[in-house]
């Protein structure tokens, strides 16, 4: 019998949906034109790029003009943060972010800190949540910009973005959120959500890698990161990644369909079954992240007395793909900054395990993981000087 293979690392990346791939194919061959060309080849492709912009806009309740396609989530974060800093530097030098941001945000903000800005990095509570109260108290006269992620990639916690955004609006502070993990998985509507900029990445929602977008609210002006031919309303020069953009558009439509079908509810059910099952079958397990305010597809735990990389490899050996924030999985040999910011000890963070489900994950997959994980943990605990014998 062939071994079951269960990919539970959708927070790292998702497979491209067949319909997305199909939508993309013509733009490699046939519809290869440059959308900036005047002729028929170009005009045809321009229409599809415009269509994709409408589709991605519809995912957020935005206007197409407010969507800037980029070369991925990291680039959109950089465009937002460096752009805002540059646009606002005459007004003030204080910038706020949180301790649990993705490095695309955190390192960019820290870089601002090395280049004339004052940076406040907000702490989070044990569930990885930024407190609106703490956020409010960190504001200064010269605060011009804040960025807090919509949902965390490592522990799944969903932040109170509406509240944080409302505080910023009250105080005239530009507000950005990295919604790379949330978009396409949690309904987001910028008509009611008070954010000025929001980052998306196609490959986290069944689209291709290397394409992302920045939602930039009408009236917000920032300079580009990439200068040149003036594509993307002058905010991101370079001939468009037409196939990628069209794929992203299709992925956005499919995400809307899934919301309509209530697929996120199914995902949430499987997530809870996984979390509850792990906690029931394995002792000394700590759920990381918030129990309910969390991504519908995201389960993450720390399993005491054993180390994450060893767990990943043993899971891989039985066909399960997962990830970990353990020190041994990072090149730096430090545990993930997210787990440390939540107050976990190095030792506990060592046992970090993240299982992120996808739209095609089945209940049988979850049952398989719930059967396969306990023996892996037991084996490793038997090898550990700390494991209970």
């Amino acid at each position, binding site marked *: 019998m062939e071994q079951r293979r269960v990919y539970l690392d959708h927070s790292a990346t998702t497979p491209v949906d067949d319909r997305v791939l199909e939508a993309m194919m013509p733009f490699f061959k046939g519809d290869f034109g440059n959308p900036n060309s005047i002729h028929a080849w170009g005009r045809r492709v321009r229409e599809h790029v415009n269509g994709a912009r409408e589709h991605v806009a519809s995912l957020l309740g935005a206007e197409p003009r407010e969507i800037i396609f980029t070369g991925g989530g990291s680039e959109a974060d950089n465009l937002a943060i460096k752009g805002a800093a540059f646009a606002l530097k005459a007004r003030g030098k204080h910038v706020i972010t949180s301790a649990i941001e993705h490095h695309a945000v955190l390192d960019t903000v820290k870089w601002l800190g090395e280049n004339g800005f004052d940076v406040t990095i907000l702490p989070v509570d044990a569930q990885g949540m930024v407190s609106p109260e703490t956020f409010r108290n960190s504001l200064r006269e010269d605060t011009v910009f804040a960025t807090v992620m919509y949902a965390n990639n490592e522990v799944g916690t969903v932040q109170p973005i509406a509240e944080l955004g409302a505080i910023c609006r009250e105080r005239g502070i530009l507000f950005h959120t990295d919604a790379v993990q949330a978009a396409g998985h949690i309904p987001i509507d910028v008509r009611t959500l008070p954010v000025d900029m929001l980052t998306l990445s196609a490959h986290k929602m069944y689209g291709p890698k290397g394409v992302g977008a920045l939602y930039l609210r009408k009236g917000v002006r920032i300079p580009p990161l990439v200068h040149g031919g003036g594509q993307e309303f002058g905010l991101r020069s370079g001939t468009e990644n037409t196939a990628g953009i069209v794929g992203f558009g299709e992925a956005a439509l499919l995400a809307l369909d899934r919301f309509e079908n209530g697929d996120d509810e199914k995902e949430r059910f499987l997530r809870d079954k996984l979390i509850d099952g792990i906690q029931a079958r394995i002792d000394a397990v700590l759920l990381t992240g918030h129990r309910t305010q969390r991504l519908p597809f995201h389960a993450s735990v720390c399993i005491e007395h*054993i180390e994450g*990389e060893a767990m990943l490899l043993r899971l891989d050996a039985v066909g399960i793909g997962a990830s970990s924030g353990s020190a*041994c999985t990072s090149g730096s*040999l430090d545990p993930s900054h997210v787990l440390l910011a939540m107050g976990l000890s190095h030792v506990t963070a060592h046992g970090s395990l993240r299982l992120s489900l996808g739209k095609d994950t089945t209940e049988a997959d979850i049952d398989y993981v719930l059967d396969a994980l306990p023996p892996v943990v037991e084996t490793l605990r038997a*090898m*550990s*000087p700390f494991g209970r014998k």
Partner: protein
Amino acid sequence: MYTETVRDYFLNPRNVGSLDHADGIGEVGNAKCGDVMKISIKVEDDRITDVRFETFGCAAAIASSSIATEMIKGKTLDEALQVTNRDVLNALGGLPAEKIHCSLLAEEGIRAAVEDYRSRMAESA
């Protein structure tokens, strides 16, 4: 990223556990990533007759400690002290650069176990 030998020693580790009446125990930790390795030895006539390990660490650390136990079993204490992390690395067919320190843990574990045995001997003498 790991050689077949590393995978083998990690998936089917030899000499796991602790010895009930160990003559020497070496417990060493890696300040860097927080891993801990414990090596217990049984000694007769200055020779290591049995050895077990327990490791709280990554696959490379587990494989390193496991192969190290095989390398020192049957050796005299002085011979065991000659085993270096280089030897462990060679036996494993190499480790990724960022995992070299895990093999160092094995060398230190052996050393600590032998030292523990010798200090116990010195005390009882």
